[in-house]
């Protein structure tokens, strides 16, 4: 197994190099786009720990992202007792607050399984946008809250977009490492045992309550951090910044990336961003099919393209990009293990 460990560490180092070098080769605007992909990636890492490793479906992670985003907005605009907090330091606080909310949801989730949990979490996703409308003096109503524009810290000579890129991907890599350590350690084995058979796991002395709630909390922490970064990059929050459909997109990204493949999730995150913002490009490609003439700018086309891609990916690649990677590289690397 040592060879596998080295392989994974080398992969991680390679990823770090690519991430560090990428902004040199792309435009400022592309760096911003990649930063947002990084935010989705962070949220997907959390969702993977919950759904991929512990087997609990959540259709409400957009709400945890929103909690993170709103925490950052409130702390950096209104502050605590009039004392504003720098946006950078609100990121961990946002993660913790979202994580606490996750623990809170995780407790009733113990009694619910499978689809019931999916429905209840979907209910959370749908209910959340109502809260800012109801408590508008605190959360800013439908207009939302305007944040201060993000700026690189003093002494760093770089553009705002590059700063957000490095900030996001720096955090993403740290959280990727943390997730990797988590899932290959004792907690990860416990979570996978619970996913595969709750009864068997409980009989082996694994505390279902502890690990399932823990998975919810950690997963919501990741989502909260992602939401906080999203709020900072956007410089405003309102209910439309974290729409209901975001929760659906996250599950979609997870399935496309591969449920339990941490690195594959980058592909899922990329797809979420690409289809949300560049569906008209896809529509133009489709127009090359003879006898088809779609107007890429027509409303409805993005959602159609998203739906079709989703169905096709699920039918052709049920294990996602991670599964595909394993199928391609598996035969090569497994030979490596047996030799060592």
């Amino acid at each position, binding site marked *: 197994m040592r060879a596998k460990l080295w392989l994974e560490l080398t992969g991680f180092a390679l990823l770090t190099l690519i991430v560090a070098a990428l902004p040199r080769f792309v435009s400022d605007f592309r760096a911003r786009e990649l930063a947002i992909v990084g935010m989705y990636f962070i949220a997907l890492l959390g969702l993977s720990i919950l*759904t991929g490793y512990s087997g609990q*479906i959540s259709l409400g992670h957009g709400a945890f992202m929103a909690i993170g985003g709103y925490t950052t907005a409130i702390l950096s605009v209104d502050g605590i007792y009039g004392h504003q907090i720098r946006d950078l330091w609100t990121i961990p606080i946002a993660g913790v607050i979202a994580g606490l909310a996750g623990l809170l949801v995780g407790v*009733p989730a113990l*009694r*619910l399984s*499978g*689809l*019931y949990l*999916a*429905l*209840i979490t*979907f*209910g*959370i996703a*749908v*209910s959340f946008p*109502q*809260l800012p*409308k*109801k408590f508008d003096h605190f959360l800013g109503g439908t207009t939302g809250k305007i944040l201060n524009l993000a700026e690189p810290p003093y002494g760093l000579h770089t553009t705002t977009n590059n700063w957000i890129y490095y900030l996001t991907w720096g955090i993403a890599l740290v959280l990727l490492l943390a997730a990797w350590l988590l899932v290959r350690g004792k907690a990860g084995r416990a979570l996978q045992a619970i996913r595969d*058979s*709750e*009864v*068997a796991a409980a*009989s082996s002395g694994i505390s279902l309550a502890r690990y399932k709630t823990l998975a919810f909390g950690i997963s919501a922490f990741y989502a909260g951090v992602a939401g906080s970064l999203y709020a900072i990059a956007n410089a405003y929050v309102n209910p439309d910044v974290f729409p209901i459909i975001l929760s*659906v997109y996250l*599950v*979609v990204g997870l*399935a496309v990336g591969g*449920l339990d493949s941490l690195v594959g999730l980058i592909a899922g995150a990329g797809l979420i961003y690409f289809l949300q913002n560049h569906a008209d490009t896809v529509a133009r490609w489709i127009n090359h099919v003879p006898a088809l003439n*779609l107007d890429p700018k*027509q*409303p*409805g*086309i*993005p*959602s*159609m*393209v*998203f*739906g*079709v*891609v*989703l*169905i096709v990916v*699920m*039918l052709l690649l*049920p294990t996602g990009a991670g599964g595909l990677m394993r199928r391609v590289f598996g035969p090569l690397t497994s030979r490596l293990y047996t030799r060592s």
Partner: protein
Amino acid sequence: MLLYAFTWTEFAQQLAAGIREGAIYAGLALALVIIYRSTRVINFAQGEMATFTTFIAWSLMNHGLSFWTAFPVVLVIAFAGGVAIERVLIRPVENAPVLTIVIITLGLALLLNGLMSVIWGGANRQFNGPFSTRTIDVGSVPISVQDIGIVAVSVGLVVLLALFFRFTKLGLALRAAAVNPESSRLAGIRVGWMLALGWGIAAVLGAVAGMMIAPVVFLDPNMMQTILLYAFAAAVLGGLDSPIGAVVGGILLGVTITLLGRYVGFIGSTLKLPAALLLILVLLLVRPGGLFGRVAVRRV
């Protein structure tokens, strides 16, 4: 908490409105339950399927058909569409994990929603229903004919469906395939086609719910999204595998949230949905299988 002057007449009117809402939820919840019983899948595209068929009805009526001539045509189209969706999209992943199938139905919902915007545009449309909106006095309480009609059609449909499941050979086969697919296959029931039939029936139920609610709210591609959520809640409330539960849950939910929204000032119209979901969550913690559902005992 009572903000407004309370009158029994208004209470009765709110109750009637609640039952009308509930009848719609019940129809869609029943569709969800029928698919859930046979395939163990929640169909997230149910709302979009219903709206799509309602748009077809709108188009037919726009071409000069009356409501009651368009109605059966739409039901046939809905049935065929439901069967086709099962055959093409769901059958290939029949044995895949729940999440895969859930995602395919989510994809279908997005696809249908986009398709509706492309074909019919996103604007609100007036949908002329079969019932007039004038009111008649029922024991000195004015209630609109439309509300009575909606409830009557929904109840009639449920009764028809119950008779079909209870007294026909096909209904028996459908129930058998849902409860025990392996034994049913041995008994000569074509389980695969029974599942497709279930999707067809669910699509028909959705189409009826859509055509009933469209005159009340305006017709647009997102018409059914909130209603679908209430239908989920209703189905969970009654127990996901109990058809009677879906109907009772739907009516109960419709009445509860209408009354809560009207008489509890804090909830109003913004917190209706969260309040409903909170109620369901509490109920699920006490009775994990819903009101009428059964909780499976797990075996290793």
